[in-house]
């Protein structure tokens, strides 16, 4: 079989050239599908970034009495940690809050000029598992006598999170759907190139070619189609993403746009390999189908 590799490759290129139009249609199909695939993948990853951003805000802040003793604080921390849905409790002394506050606003005015003493209460920051838990936990927390007030970032957080979750799941479903649709289109396109060579195949079979032998050149042709499609899609997507993402990042700096080159590289590699796999699998399925039906 291996002495034939060269023959198979020559055959594959020959067939690719002979059915140039059909091959181009297959390449185009793979390119378009992979670009769509890539757009969704990047969209999902970027939304994941937003979610990551939002998740870090799943906190309930419990403000406590200013005169709380260290011992009481310790006991309270243990108490709060026991609440349903709370994953982490962090004690934030009023000094720490004050430092934070001054860091945020200090540039604008010299606070020490205005306020001579630290006006902030001590607090606990409770991290909860899901956004739905924010209000329940807050309600529970205020029941405690030592807690003066509990607050959490507004309901938008929950809304964004569930929206993003929906888009994420929808995106994943779409990516799967697009892959299947692409595979089907590729199978049918390559099927045409296989059918165009029906006579060749019947003669090959007649002189004693095994099915594997018949399939090989088509699979290599599928790989060629897939690689070209994958690389084209990669180039299109890379140029588009670089242009759009960089512009967006400049215009709307608060948007957590993913510019991690490593992760981008992964996306591009997935596209090229995805294209190759699609071409190969598509060719394999279509040639197997034709062989089964006709020979």
């Amino acid at each position, binding site marked *: 079989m291996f002495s034939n590799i060269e023959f198979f490759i020559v055959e594959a290129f020959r067939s690719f050239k002979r059915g140039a139009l059909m091959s181009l249609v297959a390449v185009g199909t793979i390119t378009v599908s992979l670009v769509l695939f890539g757009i969704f993948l990047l969209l999902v990853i970027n939304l994941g970034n937003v979610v990551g951003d939002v998740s870090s805000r799943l906190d309930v802040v419990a403000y406590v009495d200013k005169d709380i003793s260290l011992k009481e604080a310790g006991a309270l921390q243990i108490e709060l940690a026991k609440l349903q849905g709370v994953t982490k409790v962090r004690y934030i002394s009023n000094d720490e809050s004050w430092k934070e506050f001054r860091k945020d606003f200090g540039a604008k005015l010299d606070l020490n000029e205005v306020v001579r003493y630290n006006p902030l209460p001590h607090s606990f920051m409770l991290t909860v598992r899901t956004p739905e838990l924010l209000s329940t936990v807050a309600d529970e927390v205020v029941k405690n006598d030592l807690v003066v007030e509990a607050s959490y970032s507004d309901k938008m957080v929950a809304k964004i999170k569930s929206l993003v979750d929906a888009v994420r799941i929808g995106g994943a479903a779409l990516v799967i759907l697009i892959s299947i649709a692409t595979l089907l289109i590729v199978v049918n396109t390559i099927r045409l190139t296989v059918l165009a060579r029906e006579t060749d195949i019947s003669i090959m079979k*007649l*002189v*004693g*070619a095994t099915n594997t032998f018949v399939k090989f050149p088509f699979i290599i042709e599928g790989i060629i189609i897939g690689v070209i499609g994958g690389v084209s899609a990669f180039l299109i997507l890379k140029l588009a993403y670089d242009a759009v993402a960089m512009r967006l990042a400049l215009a709307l700096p608060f948007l957590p746009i993913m510019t991690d080159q490593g992760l981008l590289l992964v996306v591009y590699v997935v596209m090229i390999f995805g294209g190759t796999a699609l071409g190969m699998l598509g060719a394999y399925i279509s040639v197997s189908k034709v062989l089964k039906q006709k020979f």
Partner: protein
Amino acid sequence: MIELINVSKTYSNGIDVLCNVNLNIGKEEFVFIVGPSGAGKTTLMRLLYRGENPSSGKVIVDRVNVAELDAEQVPYLRRNIGVVFQDYKLLPKRTVFENVAFALRVTGAPRSTIRRKVMQSLELVGMLRRASAFPDELSGGEKQRACIARAIVNNPPILLADEPTGNLDPTTSWDIIQLLEKINKRNTTVLVATHNKSIVDDMKRRVVALENGRIVRDQQLGGYNV
């Protein structure tokens, strides 16, 4: 070499093409299969290389019941049976050399062996000169020689020729039949299905006559008619 035992073939459209055929062909025989159009000659040959499966009965080729062969085994059967067609079935975009080499490529033979054997085969059929020609540059007789070269390049013990002279003029037909006889003398069993009366009558070989899917005559040193 070839044995058919109670072979019947009914196509899916319900036509009985072969009915209870029994036939025994020895090693290195030369046999004509004659009969009117639609008698079942092509079908009988197709059964031998598993182009079709019989509806019942045994088709034994070289001690193996071809009817029971696994699909994966069929290619190896076909490498032992050369087939020649009335319409040649040459690949149009390939030269004579490449067409003949094709039958060796599928066996995974090394390139040097392919070259040597193709040359030998083309030499035998007298086509060495035309090795680099494409099929549409060849006359009918030359196409048939190329087809025969491809059929014998693997040195198969059996050669089947289905109306090999169907599209050829009398002189060329005679050349082709003599070529088949030459191949037969090189220890190859040869079956020829034909409508060519003068050739069958002149050759005086074994004749198997089919009519409506039954063998109506099996005669040594026979003629086209009784």
